[in-house]
C-alpha cells in the first residue's frame, strides 16, 4: 500500500514538473522550429519541427531583379541569411556585448568594495547604510526611469552608450549578494592579509575577489541576462540612432522593417540573439549553481 502511495506521489510530482517544463520550453521550441521552416510551412503549420527543407524561391531576391535560378535556396539558409542581411544583427550583438560587459565590470568595481565595507569594516552608520541598500532593492526601475531619463537628457547623454550603461552601474542587488557572501568569509583571513601588509584595497581585489568567484558568477549571470534582454531602457534612451541598438531593440526594428508575416527570418534572428546566453549559461552552469547554494547555505 505504502509503496503504491509513494509511487503515485512521485508520479504526480513528476507530471507537474514535466508540465511546467513544457510550458517554459514551448516558446523556445516554436522559435527554433519557425527559424528552420519555409513561410508556407509556418502559415499552414506543417512540416514538423524542421520542416521539409524543400528548395524555395526568395521572393525579395526575385523582386530585386535577379534571375529566378539564382534565388533558389533551402528555408533554413534563407531564414538565417535574411536575418543577417536585413538588419545589422552583428552590430546589434556587438552593442549588446559591449553594453552588458561594461555594465557588469563597473557593477563589480562598485559592488565589491561596498560589500566589503558593509560586511567586514566597522564604521558608524553601517547598519543604516545597509538598510538603505535593502530599501533600494525594493524600488522598481520603471519608477525612476523618467527622472533618470531627464537627467541624462539634461547632460546630453541620450543616444549614447553612456546612457545605456551609466544607470545600471550601481547594482544594489550586487552589493547585497556580495555582502551576504562576504559575511561567510572568516575574519581571520582578512586579519592575516592585514598582518601580511595588504592594504584594504588589495584585500578587496586580491583576497575577497578570488574567494568570491562563485558568487560573482551567479551575479554575473543575473546581470548579463537582465541587461542583454532588456528592452525597456534602451527603448527609452535610444531614439533613432540605429547604430546604438541592442539586440532586443534591434529585433523590434527588424520586425517593422520586414513585411508583415516574415516569421522565419525573425525567429532566426531571435535564435541568434538568445544563443550566446544559452552558451554562457551552459558553460558557467556548474559554478553558477555552486555559487547560489554557497550564498544560500551559510
Amino acid at each position: 500500500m505504502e509503496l503504491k502511495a509513494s509511487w503515485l506521489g512521485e508520479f504526480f510530482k513528476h507530471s507537474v514538473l514535466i508540465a511546467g517544463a513544457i510550458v517554459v520550453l514551448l516558446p523556445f521550441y516554436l522559435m527554433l522550429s519557425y527559424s528552420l521552416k519555409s513561410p508556407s510551412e509556418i502559415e499552414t503549420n506543417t512540416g514538423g519541427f524542421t520542416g521539409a527543407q524543400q528548395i524555395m524561391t526568395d521572393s525579395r531576391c526575385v523582386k530585386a531583379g535577379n534571375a529566378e535560378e539564382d534565388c533558389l535556396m533551402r528555408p533554413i539558409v534563407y531564414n538565417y541569411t535574411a536575418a543577417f542581411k536585413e538588419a545589422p544583427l552583428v552590430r546589434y550583438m556587438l552593442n549588446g556585448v559591449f553594453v552588458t560587459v561594461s555594465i557588469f565590470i563597473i557593477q563589480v568595481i562598485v559592488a565589491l568594495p561596498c560589500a566589503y565595507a558593509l560586511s567586514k569594516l566597522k564604521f558608524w552608520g553601517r547598519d543604516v547604510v545597509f538598510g538603505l541598500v535593502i530599501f533600494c532593492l525594493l524600488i522598481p526601475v520603471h519608477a525612476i526611469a523618467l527622472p533618470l531619463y531627464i537627467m541624462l537628457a539634461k547632460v546630453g547623454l541620450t543616444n549614447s552608450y553612456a546612457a545605456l550603461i551609466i544607470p545600471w552601474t550601481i547594482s544594489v542587488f550586487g552589493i547585497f549578494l556580495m555582502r551576504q557572501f562576504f559575511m561567510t568569509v572568516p575574519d581571520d583571513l582578512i586579519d592575516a592579509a592585514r598582518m601580511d601588509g595588504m592594504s584594504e584595497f588589495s584585500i578587496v581585489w586580491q583576497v575577497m575577489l578570488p574567494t568570491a568567484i562563485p558568487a560573482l558568477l551567479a551575479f554575473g549571470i543575473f546581470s548579463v541576462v537582465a541587461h542583454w534582454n532588456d528592452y525597456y531602457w534602451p527603448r527609452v534612451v535610444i531614439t533613432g540612432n540605429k547604430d546604438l541598438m541592442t539586440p532586443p531593440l534591434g529585433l523590434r526594428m527588424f520586425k517593422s522593417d520586414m513585411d508583415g508575416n516574415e516569421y522565419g527570418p525573425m525567429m532566426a534572428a531571435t535564435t541568434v540573439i538568445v544563443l550566446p546566453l544559452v552558451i554562457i549559461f551552459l558553460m558557467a552552469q556548474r559554478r553558477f549553481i555552486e555559487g547560489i547554494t554557497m550564498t544560500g547555505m551559510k
Partner: protein
Amino acid sequence: MAGITLQGVTKAYGSQSVLNDINLDIADGEFLTLVGPSGCGKSTTLRIIAGLETQSTGDVFIDGSIVNETRPSKRDLAMVFQSYALYPHLTVHQNLITPLKLRDLTALERVPLFGHLMPERGKKMSIISSEVQKVAEILKIEPLLDRKPGQLSGGQRQRVALGRAMVRNPAAFLMDEPLSNLDASLRVHMRAELSELHRELKATFIYVTHDQAEALTMSDRIAVMMDGDLLQLGPPDEVYEDPTDIRVAEFIGSPKMNILPAICDEKGSINCLGQKIKVALKDKTKQSLSIGIRPEHLVLQSGAKSSFSGLLTYKENLGSDVFLHLDIGLETQKVVIRTDPQDANSAKIGDKISFGASPNKYLVFDANGKRIDARGRGNS
C-alpha cells in the same frame, strides 16, 4: 627580535569591559603563554598586540617604542591564527611568498605583467624564493608547495600557517590556539616541534591557549587570565606550586586541585571538614577559608587519627597512576587522590578511604580567593 610591553591596557566593547588593566612585560626571545578559560580575553590581548584591535586605554611597546598608532604590518610581528587563515585560492608556495612580496617589492614591481619589467624584481624574487625554500625545508612541507590549502590535512595546514609566519623572520610570533584543530597525538607532537622551533629561532613567542597542559609544557612564563584580568604571571613551576589566586589554582593542573572549605577561629586554629589542621596563619581573625591540595599531595592513610575520609565512588586508571574519586559528604566538591596502582589495588568502590597530606602542602585562600601566606607545621 624584540621585547613587548603592555602598560595598563584595557578594552571595552561599548559598556562591556573585556580587558581590565593588563600589564605585561615580555622579554626578548621569551616564550610566553596566555592561558585562561574561553572568553577571558586572550585573543583580544593578542590582537591588541598585533594591532588588529585598538585598546581603549593603555600603551603597547615593541622594542621600547610605542606602537599604539602603528599599522599591523608595520609592527614586524607575525600571527598564526586558529583557523590558519591561508589564502584558499593560492598554492602553498604562493601563500608563503605573499608576505615577502608585500614587504620587499615596491608597488610598481607587484603590478601583474608590468611589474616583471622592473629591473630589480628578478633579483628580489630569487631572494624571496630561497627564503621560502629554506622555511619549507625546516617545516618539511616541500612536497606540498604546489597544492592549494584545501588539499592539505589539518596538520599540514598548520605547518604552512607557521611557515607563512616564519618567512618574514619577524620580531615576534603571535599564535592564537594554533594547535586546537589538531587531534590529540598530533597536538602533543607539534608542542615539541614548536618548542624546538622557538629554541632554534630565538624569537619572542606569544602563545594563546586554553589548554593548561600546553601552557605548562612549552612556556618560559605563563600568564593566567580570567574574566579580563591578568591573575598571575610566572614560570610554569611557580604558577603550579604557588598560585596566588584560587581561580589560578583550580585552572592550572589536571585533575583539578581539591578545594576544601575551612573555618578559622579567633585563636587562629583552622577546622576543615571536622579536622583540625596544623597550619598557622599570621592574621588570627575569624574567617572562612578554602584549603587547596593537589591530588598528588594527598596520601592514603590507614586508620590515622587526624585524617579525612570519604567513600570511593570512582577509580580512574591511567596505567601509570590511578585517580581515586572520593565522596566526602559535600555536594559540590569531590576529592581526587593520585596514587600508585599498587596502593589503589585493594580499594573497592564504596569503601571508606582515609587520607591526609603533609601540612606544608596546604594552600590557604581567603574568602575572596586570594592566597594567604600560611605555614604548615611538620608532616601531619
